[in-house]
């Protein structure tokens, strides 16, 4: 497996005309290997788009090393540009041109046979509307056109910044199928998105960025497993008594209004056995496996904003994970330039 994108120590500070500087990237690292569908996640303003812009030579990084297909970027981008298809944050197209003409002009400029135009229009489901002006397109149609433009070159590496932006459910599903097909055909995909369930469905690898720094990276299943604290949700008639019994059996229990969460469980059958022996019949024992959303909210410290629960909860209560945020599962680096809620779990 070869390295397709490698970024290390990327820094970018935007200087504003007034109000000094703003650190957008603070030593960010990213590694994408060939054949991956790599999810790129992070809260608003965490630096995803800035990373991709820097990688593609649209903004100049202050420091750091970047390579694409082993070639240093952006210096030798022209040499590999033909192998990279990219969209960065809802590209704008010229409103007076039709979709087909837009693509044809790009194809001509990039030296791609214009026969590709019809193929990609078909691929993104825009063939029937291709001869209308881009101005008259809906948000989702423009997004499809953008994806089509990225596909024109038959790229080996596809970089998609929020491709699902504005797509309807069917469109999201088509996008998912498209990415899977491309990946099956050997295309490496780097995709940023805020639809975490979607990322969890299609991506095999993930990198999460927060305030310009990487907070976690790896295979999706491994990342999730790393956040699996062996928690189970237990529903049973007498919650208080059950909590006592389980506690006496040496388990850590957190009480909730209608259920218990048992932590650090090695063998879940022990729960049912312990309670059953005392005549308490368990209605439900559900493993609380973390999903990307809970991991994301925990890592990026953005859970509080919407959850409105006590500081011990990093995830919304209905997720029911209720885990202690203080556990040093892995090093959670949060940049010094706190812009968000800024609560670093102690």
């Amino acid at each position, binding site marked *: 497996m070869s390295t397709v994108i490698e970024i290390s120590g990327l820094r970018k500070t935007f200087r504003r005309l007034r109000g000094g500087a703003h650190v957008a990237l603070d030593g960010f690292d990213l590694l994408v290997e060939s054949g991956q569908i790599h999810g790129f996640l992070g809260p608003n303003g965490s630096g995803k788009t800035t990373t991709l812009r820097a990688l593609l030579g649209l903004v100049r990084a202050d420091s750091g090393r970047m390579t694409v297909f082993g070639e240093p970027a952006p210096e030798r981008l022209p040499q590999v540009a033909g192998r990279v298809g990219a*969209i960065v944050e809802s590209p704008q*197209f010229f409103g007076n041109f039709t979709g087909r003409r837009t693509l044809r002009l790009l194809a001509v*400029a990039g030296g791609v046979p214009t026969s590709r135009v019809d193929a990609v229009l078909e691929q993104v489901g825009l063939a029937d509307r291709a001869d209308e002006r881009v101005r008259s397109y809906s948000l989702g149609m423009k997004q499809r056109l953008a994806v089509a433009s990225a596909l024109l*070159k038959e790229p080996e590496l596809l970089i998609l910044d929020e491709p699902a932006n504005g797509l309807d459910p069917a469109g999201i599903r088509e996008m998912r199928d498209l990415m899977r097909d491309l990946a099956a055909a050997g295309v490496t995909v780097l995709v940023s998105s805020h639809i975490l369930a979607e990322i969890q469905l299609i991506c095999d690898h993930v990198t999460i960025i927060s305030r310009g720094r990487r907070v976690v990276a790896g295979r999706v299943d491994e990342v999730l497993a790393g956040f699996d604290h062996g928690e189970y949700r237990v529903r049973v008639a007498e919650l208080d008594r059950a909590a006592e019994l389980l506690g006496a059996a040496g388990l850590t229990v957190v009480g909730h209004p209608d259920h218990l969460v048992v932590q650090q469980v090695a063998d879940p059958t022990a729960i049912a056995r312990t309670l059953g022996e005392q005549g308490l019949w368990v209605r439900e024992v559900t493993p609380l496996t973390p999903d990307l959303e809970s991991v994301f909210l925990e890592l990026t410290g953005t859970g509080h904003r919407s959850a409105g629960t006590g500081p011990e909860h990093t995830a919304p209560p209905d997720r029911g994970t209720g885990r202690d945020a203080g556990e040093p599962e892995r090093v959670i680096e949060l940049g010094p330039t706190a812009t968000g809620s800024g609560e670093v779990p102690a």
Partner: protein
Amino acid sequence: MNLVRAELERLTARRFVQLMVVLLIAAFGITIATTLASSHRPTQVEVTRAEQQAATARQEMVQAYQNCLAARAAGVQPGQDGYPANCAEMDPARSKHLPSAGDFLYQVFVFDQQIRPLLYFLIAFLMLFAFLVGASYIGADLTSGGMTNLLLWRPQRMTVLGTKLGALLGTVLVVSVLSSLLYLGAFWLIAVVGGLVGDPTATFWTDLSLTYLRGLVLVLMAGTLGFSVATLGRHTAAALGTFAGYVVLWELGARVVFEIIEVARPDQWMLSSYLGAWLVGRVEFWDNQACRPIESFCDGMYEITWRGGLLVLTLLVAGAVAASFTAFRRRDLA
């Protein structure tokens, strides 16, 4: 090569460019139409009379010249009569323009006498066209994200920007040449059908062609300037604003201030002087400070030649291009 083709297509497909071409043609059409309407083919009687009047006028010039020579030979001091010190100034043989029949024909378009101001009008209009098209072409691309898209395809900023400038200048040149052919051709036709051609000599044609070529250089410079300033300011409006600001604040405002504080030779600080010098060959300005205190005789004129004009304009345009390309090379694109 592919990039050039794509850029040419992008440029010519722009609504604004098409609109400007229409306006250009409309303006030319109006000029041509008014000329046509106010000109008629002179009758034989009119021509004969005009020729007689011209002959008389030439005769008078010769006579005056002779009178001058005679007066000087007789030792009459200049100032005592109305003739200049040096009679050669009056020599009809050295005169640039001898009275001809065309001068005495009214409501008749005479090509060789009236085409020059019309040519200046053509050049001024083409310059405006080139400036606006140049500014809007790159300005719209920068603000609409078209440039970003293109750079994702061709991550070579200098090549992309250079190609755009090249495509612009090529298109402007073609439009200019074609429209001037139509424009000048139309006036020629008016002259032949509904007026007089006059008496175009070889010198006349050389002069006219040279002026036209110099005008084309100005047109290309205007396009380049619009393009560069819009690139620097990332917006079409940057170029338009700079242009309007320059005219209002400097050419008009500063000129007034210069008059008030009595700066010497204010015209040499104005781009318009150099523009005129390049186009016409040389321009003379009155130096308001040179002749103080007032003495008996003082030549307070100074001139700017086409060389000076070309130098200043070239430096200006080259500076703008260099600045815009340097800025574009490093800047962050949205």
